[in-house]
């Protein structure tokens, strides 16, 4: 199973991960981190192929992707 772990405190809310996800499995969440940015969340039941485009193209390295 592929797990997308989002480091919410490092996120700056640029939403590039949402733009680059080929399956559209990420979306911007409603809660804010301590810096006041809205961070993304992995959709419930969202599909993930493990391409890690979200993590590799995140400018702040806030996303880790791993297979368990």
């Amino acid at each position, binding site marked *: 199973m592929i797990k997308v772990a989002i480091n919410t405190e490092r996120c700056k809310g*640029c*939403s590039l991960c949402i733009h680059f996800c080929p399956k559209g499995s990420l979306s911007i969440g409603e809660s804010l981190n301590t810096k006041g940015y809205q961070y993304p969340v992995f959709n419930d039941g969202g599909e993930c192929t493990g391409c890690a485009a979200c*993590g590799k193209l*995140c*400018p702040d390295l806030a996303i880790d*992707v791993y297979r*368990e």
Partner: protein
Amino acid sequence: MPVKSRGKKVLCGQPKSRLDTESGLCPGCQHGTIGRILCEVIDELEIQGKTICIAGVGCHAMTLFTMNVDFVQALHGRAPGVGTGVKRAVGKNKVVFTVQGDGDLASIGIGDLIHAANRGEKLTIIFCNNSAYGTTGGQMAPTTLLGQVTPTTPEGRNYEDAGFPMHVAELMAAFPGVAYSARCALTSLANYNKTKKAVKIAFQKQMDGVGLSIVEILSACPPSLKLSPTKAVEWMENNMMAEYPLGEFKNVDTVTPKYILKGA
């Protein structure tokens, strides 16, 4: 690079040579991604302990505070000159690279760059092209597109007054001392992989002692374009990639002089 650790396969984790710290860059600034690529390449080539980075002046220099390598801060545009001195002093078994932006490299430091290329210095130059002077508010740089509105070209860049966008990767390919010259972009996962490959080849050329290697990376600067990060990436894909073609312009294994006087 996928590594197995504690029963889980990491598909995308934190590179070993990156410090566990935040970058001071704006949201959506792709210089952070360039920093990630550099860290990954340094990890894969296992050169963390013998790498020296020369930082130019600009936003790109902030990437380096997140990297766990030695670095020297050069004056504005003088990174290839400082890199020359460092490389000649530390010897062949160290890896020296510069990270420079378009205002730093293509405008203020073009003389340093051209002479470093002409001497065929064993350096790697990572050129972050975001089509504006990002740090100071997005003023016109030599790489600004024609028609692009910036604080210094409020009616759009006009070639009659302000000239044409400068193609640095093609310019560098013309020098006999240059071993590798490529242009990449950060607009998709495929282009990310190509960029990483190009950076790795550029480091390899230096380690093989061939000559100067340069990689121009097109990256988006959302605040200077006054667009959202996703719109800035789309803008880059539609406009910057139309002006600046991607690809390798030079890739040689030995530098060959054209003519040497005989009987000397």
